[in-house]
């Protein structure tokens, strides 16, 4: 006697949950990719847990607090592992609208992932985009801090170099003015011959003729 009822339920089940059915979502799991050696096999108990998590998510939606695990239907489970699921209303005649299911799953995505030790990439709900984590945005960009530090160091070093150059040249300017009375003035003049300074003549490759005695040796030292 129960057989017709059972067949009816299965028939309805088959109609409500089909690939590409209205309000149906495809789920894809990559357990081996995520867990490697510690991968668990996907069996009906895991499916039961999945249906429980979906029912849990739907119960958090206002007006859907009475969702039971039996209202979540799975079908077309493949080797991948992938399957389709729908959530029916308590009368089991209609499926709940896709938008509600979508927002419910998005709100509780983290809990669902953790239940299976998977992540957003390895437990995929096709057509339900996951909210991506925003990148860390510090109030002051890090690069400006480093830039500021190096900039200040360079400015300080440049200022020090310039100032030390000015001090050195001031010291040099003061010394000859003290010594000019004691030294012979002739030695401070640029030797000029025919209107051309002798120093630049050197650059044209003149040879020093050692036969001539230099200015210093003409006078016998005292």
């Amino acid at each position, binding site marked *: 006697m129960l057989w017709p009822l059972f067949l009816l339920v299965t028939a309805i089940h088959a109609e409500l949950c089909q690939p590409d059915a209205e309000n149906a979502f495809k789920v*894809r*799991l*990559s*357990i*081996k*990719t995520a867990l490697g050696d510690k991968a668990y096999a996907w069996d009906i108990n895991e499916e039961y847990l999945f249906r429980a998590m979906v029912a849990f998510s739907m119960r958090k939606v206002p007006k859907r607090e009475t969702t039971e695990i039996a209202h979540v239907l799975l079908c077309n489970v*493949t*080797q*991948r*592992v*992938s399957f389709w699921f729908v959530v029916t209303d308590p009368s089991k005649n209609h499926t709940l609208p896709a938008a509600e299911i979508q927002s419910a799953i998005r709100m509780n995505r983290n809990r669902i992932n953790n239940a299976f030790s998977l992540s957003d990439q390895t437990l995929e709900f096709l057509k339900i*985009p996951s*909210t*991506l984590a*925003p*990148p860390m945005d510090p109030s002051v960009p*890090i*690069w*400006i801090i*480093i*830039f500021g530090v*190096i*900039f200040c160091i*360079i*400015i300080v*070093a*440049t200022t020090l*170099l*310039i100032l030390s*150059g000015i001090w050195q*040249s001031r010291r040099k300017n003061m010394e000859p003015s003290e010594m000019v009375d004691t030294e012979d003035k002739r030695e*401070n003049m*640029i030797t000029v011959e*025919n*209107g051309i*300074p002798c*120093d630049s003549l050197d*650059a*044209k*490759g003149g*040879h020093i003729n050692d036969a001539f005695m230099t200015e210093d040796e003409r006078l016998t030292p005292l």
Partner: protein
Amino acid sequence: MEKARPQWANPLQFVFACISYAVGLGNVWRFPYLCQMYGGGSFLIPYLIMLVVEGMPLLYMELAVGQRMRQGSIGAWRTISPYLGGVGVASVLVSFFLSMYYNVINAWAFWYLFHSFQNPLPWSVCPLNGNRTGYDAECEAASSTQYFWYRKTLNISPSIQESGAVQWEPALCLILAWLVVYLCILRGTESTGKVVYFTALLPYCVLIIYLGRGLTLHGATNGLIYMFTPKVEQLANPRTWINAATQIFFSLGLGFGSLIAFASYNEPSNDCQKHAIIVSLINSATSIFASIVTFSIYGFKATFNYENCLNKMILLLTNSFDLEDGFLTASNLEQVKDHLASAYPSKYSEVLPYIKNCSLESELDTAVQGTGLAFIVYSEAIKNMEVSQLWSVLYFFMLLMLGIGSMLGNTAAILTPLTDSKVISSHLPKEVISGLVCLISCAVGMLFTMEAGNYWFDIFNDYAATLSLLLIVLVETIAVCYVYGLRRFESDLKAMTGRALSWYWKVMWAGVSPLLIVSLFAFYLSDYILSGTLRYQAWDAFQGQLVTKDYPAYALAVIGLLVASSTMCIPLGALGTFITRHLKRGDPAPVA
């Protein structure tokens, strides 16, 4: 009393200055590209031949001229012949153009260096789009490293006509780069001499560390084997030889006047022949060394991308046919593909447009040069290494050292003639002249920080120095050999250094090198003329790739102006001297 000319504290500083000037970014980002394009290992043959025939003689000649004349480029050439002062002016002008755009590269290196202190590296992840459901569209179309370079660093506009505004971030980095250069050249050889120890040696430390890391990367050997396998048939291609000659020529930095400036601070008895040979050998050895590092990085990146591609295909097929997770591997991919094509033909044809043939060779074949190599390819490889922040910091620090070393030479080429000139140096101290040059170059360099700045950068990079330098060096060689006289120069050198000039140098200077330069010049001129209108690569944000566009008329005018302004200095200088002499002869004879 006239101040004695400043000198290097010891000859080692001079050698390091030349090395840090010659070993620059071109060794890292141009030579590996040429090596890959023109025959791999067999490119070394024309490269080394050109080094011996063209590089060493011309380098020796420039160093000898500088050491002999003991003046910057303008004074040195005017001493050789009063009509050739224009050659010096042309060198200074080309150096000025170069320093304007070259320091922008240092600004970019600073930018990347400062951004390397974050986890994760900013160019390894795409930013999210408006409603946080996916990644930014431009970043998806291109890759995260390209997005970071074109959008975050350059904020590039779609074409050269749309200039946009000056970007404050690169502008700040440019100001910092110029401050660093100013700090190094502030005291002339005194400060430069100490800085070159770092700029010459530190890049080698980093390259050695990178060699160790690069060779141990997964897939590095793929790159090395592929790149260095000689393709001997390329030796018959004339472009191979021309590119080898060009690379030697520009890599050594001949014709800018920097080498003359550096050598002018030498003692007259310095053995510049030995130093010329050492510097040119080290420069070429560094190029080859850097290409080993680059090819191992290429191999790593290509293998990584290849494996990524395979994984994507595996995922695609696994999802489309609901196969068991982990069933498809790289080894059985082809078999399973064939099986699926025969078992489910209709479904397979649906998936077919998305299936790519992953090929390691095609990944290795992508040859990149220039800023693309340094800032996109390398940063892509670095983001996939462990402890990527450390490698990133090291790498961009090395780029900075190389770039600043070259900038020191460029600014020396400009400043030495200015400080030699008595007119200018009597009114302004050396620090103020250096400051003014840096300030003007920085202000003009702001052009390259605008949104279209990278397109102007490419214009300067391709046209500011290429033809003019060939002409300058040609005139230099002819001037030394025929105007000044090879015998006279030979006896000068003998008196200065005490060594006789070998016949090899004489043959090279008088005959072979000028012929080589003339043929290079003729080739480039005909190349420019034959290719018709000039084109450039513009970044298309929607497609996420480069597209070719034509230059507008005013850009072509700027190119023409760049080339003409420096080349015209030579004849104009000669003309100017001729006119002033003619006018002087017109006056009654003043001095007996």
